[in-house]
């Protein structure tokens, strides 16, 4: 089998999506630049409120308050690292990202409790073990289209094995990912694969459930595709409202491409082709068979 790092999306593939620049994303994401599904608690929630609800939901599910060390795999623009330290009294919050613009953005927080590394999760070697880990919007990029089901499963297994090794006994993990629902790998839209998220394939819920066996127990799982649809509707609306500024920044073609992708994802969640799965896991400290 190939090295698993070559079976997921490459740095270049992720840069293709994210290195379009912070200013572009500032035009249509919420103020924290959270680029995964929000969690709406009421019809009146704004995107900003719903993104905060998402962060709080995950942090409460993994009992984050007051712990010493948090690892955020795929930390994006670091909004959750900031909230972990300011609202949950986490002493050391470490973020991993593959994208330079994220590092620049987080650096501007000037928050001494936050460290961010330009590093693939497969290469991460923690200085000390962690109490908690979160990984939101990561497993979507872990496997490439075209690899075998066995290779794909091995990648997700590796993710949970690494998390297990990085955690202290009793540690907990929060995962949020888009999953296949009423679709197969062959249904992945060519536009999304080639133009938006190159080299990225989705997991199924079963992939994740299988991959954590004997390493983590699932303490909570919920599917929230309607929340992602609503998040995307808001992003699309904001992008359109700021179309002139966005076009100045990245050009008309890029704006149209993003608008199309947001629309396609709305349809994907609306029709249950895809789902948005949120998991909480608790480390099994004495795995059988080891």
């Amino acid at each position: 089998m190939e090295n698993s790092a070559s079976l997921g999306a490459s740095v270049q593939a992720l840069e293709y999506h994210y290195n379009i620049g912070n200013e572009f994303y500032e035009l249509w994401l919420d103020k924290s630049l959270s680029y995964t599904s929000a969690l709406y608690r009421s019809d009146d929630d704004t995107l900003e409120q719903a993104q905060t609800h998402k962060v709080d939901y995950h942090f409460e599910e993994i009992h984050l308050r007051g712990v010493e060390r948090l690892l955020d795999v795929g930390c994006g623009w670091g909004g959750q690292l900031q909230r972990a330290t300011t609202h949950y009294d986490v002493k050391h919050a470490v973020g991993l990202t593959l994208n330079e613009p994220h590092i620049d953005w987080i650096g501007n927080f000037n928050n001494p409790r936050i460290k961010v590394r330009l590093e693939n999760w497969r290469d991460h070697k923690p200085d000390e073990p962690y109490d908690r880990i979160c990984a939101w919007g990561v497993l979507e990029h872990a496997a490439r289209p075209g690899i075998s089901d066995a290779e794909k499963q091995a990648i997700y297994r590796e993710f949970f094995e690494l998390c297990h090794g990085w955690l202290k006994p009793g540690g907990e993990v929060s995962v949020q990912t888009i999953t296949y629902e009423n679709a197969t790998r062959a249904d992945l839209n060519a536009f999304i694969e080639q133009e938006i998220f190159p080299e990225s394939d989705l997991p199924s819920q079963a992939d994740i459930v299988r991959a954590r066996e004997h390493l983590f127990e699932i303490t909570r799982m919920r599917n929230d595709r309607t929340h992602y649809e609503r998040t995307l509707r808001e992003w699309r609306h904001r992008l359109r409202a700021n179309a002139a500024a966005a076009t100045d920044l990245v050009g008309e073609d890029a704006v149209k491409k993003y608008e199309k992708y947001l629309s396609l994802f709305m349809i994907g969640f609306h029709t249950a082709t895809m789902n948005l799965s949120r998991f909480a896991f608790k480390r099994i400290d004495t795995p059988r068979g080891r």
Partner: protein
Amino acid sequence: MATDQITEANSESEAAPAQDALSISPDNLADIRTWLTSYLAFLLEEEPGSIDTERSFDSHGIDSAAAVSLVGDLEDWMGIELDPTIVYDYPSIDQLADFLMTRMNESAA
């Protein structure tokens, strides 16, 4: 996402769906139905008279990418913001035309 079909290529061609044939205004239900029928006929390279307005868009071969293009062209024509998902909630020309007429009346009110 539905698998790509030939309709996506057609829907993104330079010659946007039959602009000449679609130079009507969205003033009433019959015109909206005519616009949708002409649009579909252009995509499918068929005569408008042969389009079954009760048949689902899906059975006509309209995939998700074609649905996004259709809704984008509808927004340009009608001057209102629409969700791309309406093609799935109102999955035939007749059903979608009824919905769009309601939306036009609401936005005019």
